[in-house]
C-alpha cells in the first residue's frame, strides 16, 4: 500500500518534471506565450474603450485572459496528452508499467499548472499595468482559494476528457478544438455572465470556469469577500468531487474498451 503510494507519487513527479522541462525548453515559446495573448486582450479592451465603459471591464478582460491560459492548457496539454503519447509510442509504456494512470495524469496536471502559472502571471502583470486595471483585493486568501479550487476543477475535467483520447483520434482532437471558443464565450471570459440570456446562464453553470472567473473577478476587482462568494466555493468543490472519480471511472472504462477493440496503440486515426 505504502509502496504503491510512494511509487505513484514518484510517477507523478517524473511526469511533472518532463512536462516542466519540455514546456520551457525553448525560450521563445515562453516569451511568445507570455506576451502574445496581450494582443488579443488589447483588442477586447479597445472594444470596451470604444463603447465608453469603465476601467473595471479592462480588469474583466485581463482576468479572463489569465484564466483562459489554464483552460487552453487543460484542453491541449492535459486532455489531448494521451493522443500525443499514442502518436509517439509512449502510451504503451505507460500502460504496461505497474503504475496508476491517475498518477500520470496528476503529474501532467501539476506540470501543466507550473508552466501555465508562469505564463498567466506574466499576462496578469503586463495586462494590469498596461490597462491600469483597478484592483480592489480585500480578501486575498479568498481569491487564492477560488483560484486553486478552479484549477482543481478544471484539471479534473481535463482528466475526464483525457480518457476520450485513449480511444479516439481526430474525433477527440476536433472535440477539444470545438471546446475552445464556445467555453470562452459561455463562461463569460470577457464579461460578467449575468448579462447572458437565462438559458445560456444555465449552460454556463455546467462549466467550472464560469464560477472560477466570476469568483475571482468579484474578489479581485469588486472587492467582495467570502460572505458573497461562498456559493462559488461550494460549486467548485462539488465540481471537483464529481469530476475526479468520474475521470477515474472513465479512464478504466475507456482503457478496457480500447483493449477489446485494439485501438490503444492505433496511430493516424
Amino acid at each position: 500500500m505504502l509502496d504503491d503510494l510512494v511509487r505513484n507519487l514518484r510517477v507523478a513527479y517524473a511526469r511533472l518534471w518532463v512536462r516542466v522541462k519540455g514546456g520551457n525548453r525553448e525560450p521563445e515559446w515562453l516569451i511568445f506565450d507570455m506576451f502574445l495573448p496581450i494582443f488579443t486582450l488589447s483588442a477586447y479592451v479597445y472594444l470596451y474603450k470604444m463603447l465608453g465603459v469603465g476601467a473595471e471591464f479592462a480588469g474583466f478582460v485581463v482576468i479572463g485572459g489569465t484564466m483562459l491560459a489554464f483552460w487552453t492548457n487543460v484542453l491541449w496539454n492535459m486532455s489531448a496528452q494521451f493522443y500525443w503519447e499514442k502518436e509517439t509510442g509512449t502510451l504503451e509504456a505507460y500502460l504496461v508499467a505497474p503504475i496508476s494512470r491517475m498518477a500520470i495524469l496528476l503529474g501532467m496536471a501539476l506540470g501543466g499548472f507550473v508552466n501555465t502559472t508562469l505564463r498567466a502571471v506574466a499576462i496578469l502583470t503586463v495586462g494590469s499595468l498596461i490597462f491600469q486595471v483597478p484592483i480592489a483585493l480585500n480578501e486575498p486568501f479568498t481569491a487564492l482559494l477560488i483560484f486553486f479550487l478552479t484549477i482543481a476543477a478544471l484539471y479534473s475535467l481535463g482528466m475526464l476528457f483525457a480518457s476520450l483520447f485513449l480511444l479516439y483520434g481526430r474525433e477527440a482532437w476536433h472535440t477539444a478544438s470545438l471546446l475552445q471558443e464556445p467555453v470562452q464565450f459561455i463562461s463569460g471570459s470577457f464579461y460578467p455572465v449575468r448579462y447572458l440570456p437565462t438559458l445560456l446562464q444555465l449552460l454556463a453553470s455546467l462549466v467550472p470556469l464560469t464560477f472560477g472567473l466570476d469568483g475571482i473577478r468579484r474578489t479581485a476587482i469588486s472587492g467582495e469577500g467570502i460572505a458573497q462568494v461562498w456559493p462559488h466555493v461550494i460549486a467548485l468543490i462539488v465540481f471537483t468531487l464529481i469530476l475526479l472519480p468520474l475521470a477515474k471511472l472513465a479512464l478504466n472504462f475507456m482503457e478496457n474498451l480500447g483493449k477489446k477493440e485494439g485501438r490503444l496503440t492505433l496511430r493516424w486515426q
Partner: protein
Amino acid sequence: MAVNTVLRTVKQAVWLGWKVDTNWADPLVFAIYYMVRPLAGLLMAGFMFYVGSTVVDVFSGEHFAFLLIGNSFFIYIVQIVMSMSMLIHDDRAHYEVLKHIYLSPSSLTWYILGRALNGVVNASLSLLLTLGFGVLIFQGILGLPIPINWLGIDLPMLALTMLLGTLCFVSLGYVLSGINIMTSRVQFMLSEYVSSILYLFGGVIFTPELLPSWGQTISNALPVTYFLKSVRFSILHQTGGDFQTSLMLLSLTTLVTVGISVGVFRFAMHKARKDGLIDKKEEY
C-alpha cells in the same frame, strides 16, 4: 512544369485536403464543427459589445454591424492561414508523406496551393454559416437592430475584394508554411501568433483610429486593414473611407505580401533541401 501536371496536382491536393478535413465525421457533424467555433468567437465579441452597450445604455447599430462584418470576415482569414500553417506539420511529422510528395513529379508549391484552396472552400463555408447564424441570433433572437441591407450589397466590389484578399492570405499562408518547413518549434502556435497581431491592428472589432499613433502606423501597413475596409464598404456602404483608395491599398499590400511569400518560400525550400529538413520528423 506542364500545365496539365500543375492542374492535376492542384486538383488532387484539393480533393485530399477535403478528405482529410471531412472524413472523420458525417457532413452534418462536419458542418456543425465548422460553424460552432467561429460562431462562438463571433458571439463572444458580439456579447462584449452587447454588454458594454447595456452598461452605458447606448446601442449603436452601425458600430455593431462594423464588428459583425469585421469579426466574421476575420475568421475567413484565420481559417485559410491556419490550414496552411498546420499543413507542413501534418504531412511531414504526423502522416509522414511530405517526402513522398516532394519526390513526385509534381511540385510541392502547387500541392500546397491545392490544399490552400481547400482551406478557402472550408473558410467560405464557415463564413457564410457564421454570418447567417450570427445575424439570426443577434437580430432574430436578441432583437438587436443591425443596419445591413442584404439586398443592397455591392456584389462586384465584394467579389473583387474577396479575390484580392484570398490571394493575399494564401500568400501569407505560404510564408507560414515556409517558416514551418524551416523550423518545427513554432508550428502549433505560429498561426495563433500571427492572427492575434492581425486581430489587434487590423481594425477587426474596433476602429484603428483608437490605437496610438505607432499602432495606427502598423495598422496602415497591413493588408487585413484594407481588406476589412473594402468588405465593409461593399456590404455596409460605410462612408468612413473611399473604396477605390482602400482597394488600391489592398492591391498594393497584397503585391508586397505575394513578393515576400515567394521569397520566403523559395528560401525555405532551398534551406530544407540543403539541411535535410524535408523528412525531418520532430515532435514539438
